[in-house]
């Protein structure tokens, strides 16, 4: 399967996650979010960028509990809670944000 954005083609799996992390760019993230009907703003980007950095360092997408705690540490307690993150990513912060970030589905995500 593939996703066409601005004439560029991105390989994705059956759930819409990018097949290759290295093909990611901000265009494909925007396109995925627009397709879900919720364009990205700077608050979404904070989380997406955090996830990409976390993956770069640890080679995994963090479980939602870990994401929540780490966001709290990095961006402040008012953002490190599931209410805030679910408002940004109603399909589940780890799942949906990881998808936009081009990461595989989080380990431990069932």
């Amino acid at each position, binding site marked *: 399967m593939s996703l066409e954005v601005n004439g560029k083609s991105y390989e994705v799996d059956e759930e819409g996650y990018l097949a290759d992390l290295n093909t990611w760019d901000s265009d494909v993230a925007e396109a995925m979010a627009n397709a879900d009907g919720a364009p990205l703003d700077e608050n979404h980007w904070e989380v997406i960028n955090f996830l990409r950095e976390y993956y770069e*360092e*640890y*080679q*995994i997408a*963090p*479980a939602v*509990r*870990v994401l929540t*705690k*780490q966001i709290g*540490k990095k961006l402040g307690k008012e953002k490190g809670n599931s209410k805030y993150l679910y408002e940004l990513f109603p399909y589940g912060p780890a799942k949906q944000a990881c998808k936009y970030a081009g990461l595989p589905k989080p*380990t*431990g995500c*069932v």
Partner: protein
Amino acid sequence: MSEEGIVKKFMYVNRKCPYGTIYALESLEVVLITAAFDQDVSLAFTDDGVYQLMKDQKTDGIGMKNFSSTYAALGDYEIKKIFIDKESLDERGLSISDLQELVWEDEDEDYAEKSSINLVSRAELSKIMSQQDVVMSF
């Protein structure tokens, strides 16, 4: 995920080299999944399993993903008890300084980093194993 579910003591015993078989990677995945369910998880590294925590792993030559950096995320998953069998290190001419340092952050102390690594003898490890509810060997 229930807030007041039963918490059991799970120990994952890692005995094999990191690459060549899928055991090490599978163990790590299972560990991360179990931790997400709020269980009391500890890890033991014994026999060739001590190689899993070696610093500076490079896997380009064997075409495998280097997953050794993932061990550093264990602290984020509240896994704070990592037992290393000292005799296994000695038998392989290794010391604790050949292994990654693994830490967890104590939120109550302004995210102070504390070591998760416990160097133990086989006798001590065996005693710790006998105190577990579940021991899984990989």
